[in-house]
């Protein structure tokens, strides 16, 4: 997948690139509207991530032209302004999603994957997880043909870990994803641990869950080849 990162903060652009490269995305960087416009004309991207406040103009101004050259690309607006008008304007101009800064790179990647699933019809029918199979779209987890009941938050947790497989996610990152802006500011609470315990209990009755690892002091990880 090819990604264009339009972001004037060079450090931030670089960190995004580093992160996405690890997930096997190919990245181009543009720090200005002009440079971004050139890139868009010369290349076909799958994703275009656009920051709004750029030194030579508003990132939103890129959208109409970009959509002409890259009609199949998915557009995600990144902004620290976070006001409703910008958000509506962006979505009106055809952006696929909107992420308020500061955002977690994990969140960015999970949004990109969600768009990819919707847009490019990547239908990962069922992902195997040990002896279980998970369908992220229909939100089912099955052992053989038996469906296992997980609560909404438990499934969210599991799918987020699965989306970022082989990566340790901290309790804070997990609660931020699950509770969003209402995530608790009590960082040493064990709500995530309680949910993980429930998942292990529900699944462990049927088959081993050693793919779901506790990384001491850090968080949790799903190991999957």
């Amino acid at each position, binding site marked *: 997948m090819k990604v264009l990162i339009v972001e004037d903060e060079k*450090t931030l652009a670089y960190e995004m690139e580093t*992160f996405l490269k690890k997930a096997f995305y190919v990245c181009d960087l543009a720090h200005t509207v002009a440079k971004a416009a050139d890139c868009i004309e010369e290349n076909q991207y799958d994703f275009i991530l656009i920051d709004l406040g750029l030194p030579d103009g508003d990132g939103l101004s890129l959208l109409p032209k970009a959509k002409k050259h890259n009609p199949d690309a998915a557009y995600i607006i990144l902004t*620290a302004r976070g006001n409703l008008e910008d958000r509506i304007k962006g979505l009106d101009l055809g952006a696929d999603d909107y992420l308020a800064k500061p955002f977690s790179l994990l969140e960015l990647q999970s949004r990109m994957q969600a768009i990819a699933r919707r847009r490019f019809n990547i239908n990962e029918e069922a992902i195997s997880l040990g002896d279980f199979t998970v369908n992220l779209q229909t939100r089912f987890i099955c052992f053989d043909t038996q469906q296992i009941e997980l609560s909404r938050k438990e499934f969210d947790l599991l799918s987020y870990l699965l989306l970022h497989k082989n990566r340790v996610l*901290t309790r*804070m990152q997990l609660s931020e994803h699950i509770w969003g*802006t209402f995530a608790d500011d009590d960082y040493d609470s064990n709500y995530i641990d309680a949910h993980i315990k429930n998942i292990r209990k529900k699944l462990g009755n049927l088959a081993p869950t050693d793919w779901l690892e506790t990384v001491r002091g*850090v968080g949790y990880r799903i190991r999957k080849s």
Partner: protein
Amino acid sequence: MKLSSKLIYFITGSKIAVVLLFTALLPFLVASIASEYTNYSLKDQQKKVLKNISKNGIESYLQGDDNYGSYTMLKEEYISLQLERGPNEIDTIETVQRIVEQDTLSYRVLSYTFKNNGRKYLMEIGKTTGSINQYNKPLQRIALYVLLGLILLTIVADLIVTNVLVSPLKKIIYSKLINRKFPFKETALPVKTTTQDFKYLDQSLIALMEQINIDFEKEREFTANASHELMTPISILQTKMENLLADEGINETTAMSIIGMMKTLDRLKKISSSLLLISRIENEQFSKSDELYPLKLLNDIQEEIGHRTNEKGIQMNINLSGTMIIKQVNQGLMFQLFYNLINNAIKYNVPGGRIDITDHRDASGYEIKINDTGVGIAEEELQFIFDRFRKTNLSENAGYGLGLSIVKSIAIYHGIGLNVESKAGKGTVFSVKFYQV
């Protein structure tokens, strides 16, 4: 009182005073005019008599007698001439009583002594005061009618002119003061008037409003810029830490310290976004067009926050009307308001405590009460709990004092009543009152 009313009252009042004064003075005025006129006509008659005497001789009156007297038929007037033996020269006009054929009549009498052929005569010309005053009453009435008519006419004219004169002021008040809601989105149109004072007032108000608008825009821009300036470095730090943490090569100690840094950064992020949220609410950047089902909202919050009540063993009872709908609110902000209140009720509750959520509807509005069995708030602290960064009875990890400030700004923005009652050690009741339902 309005300026126009004051003017009208003053105009009408002053005119009524003039009418009353004139009515009170009218009898005296008419009487004095009548008496002046009588004096004048008596003198006129005196001149005629003297002229006759000098022309025809006094004997034409006396006809050989020493006296001459003539009355009109109803004794309203008389003329008399008689020899005067006294030494005094008389020339007076006075009101005197005369007995004429057993009737005592009051006369206005001109007395005048003159010499003719070496003899001194006294001339008297009299007129009954009754006949003098006979026109007074009708005269007074006519004068009063004319006056009342004129006064009415001027009052009507005054009302019209006052209204026309004051109308630009009314327009200024209506268009610039009453009908304007901050922020002033469209520019105000000047009110048309030829009155210099109103023109000046109107222009000053427009200039003032423009200045406020400019300042408000600046503040909004500042908020947007400040958020941008704050959020960008936070973003950079966050992404850097995430990448560091994702590095396979790091050991547990490093990972732990990165997590510590991320927690601190998250606090900074939460404080900044809470402040931004408050400033956005204060800048009215949220629409108020949603319909709200309180029962559904509270149930959603219970589901969202359930892990916390479970952890503390708190029993939460929602007892709300299932049919209530609240209109013209922002759903997201309402969620935030009740979420923060309930979150507080959990945070400051005792393990195994209770939270009771009830509602009440009456003519004055719809009220939701959130009643907890927590540690309560001391009376002297109650007035400060909605202030930014003010902590009450809490330990270090119990929030950053912005939750209730957010609640307060959401309530103000929606015109919702917010009330808190608490007893230390017993619990707290937060009441949220919707006046328009």
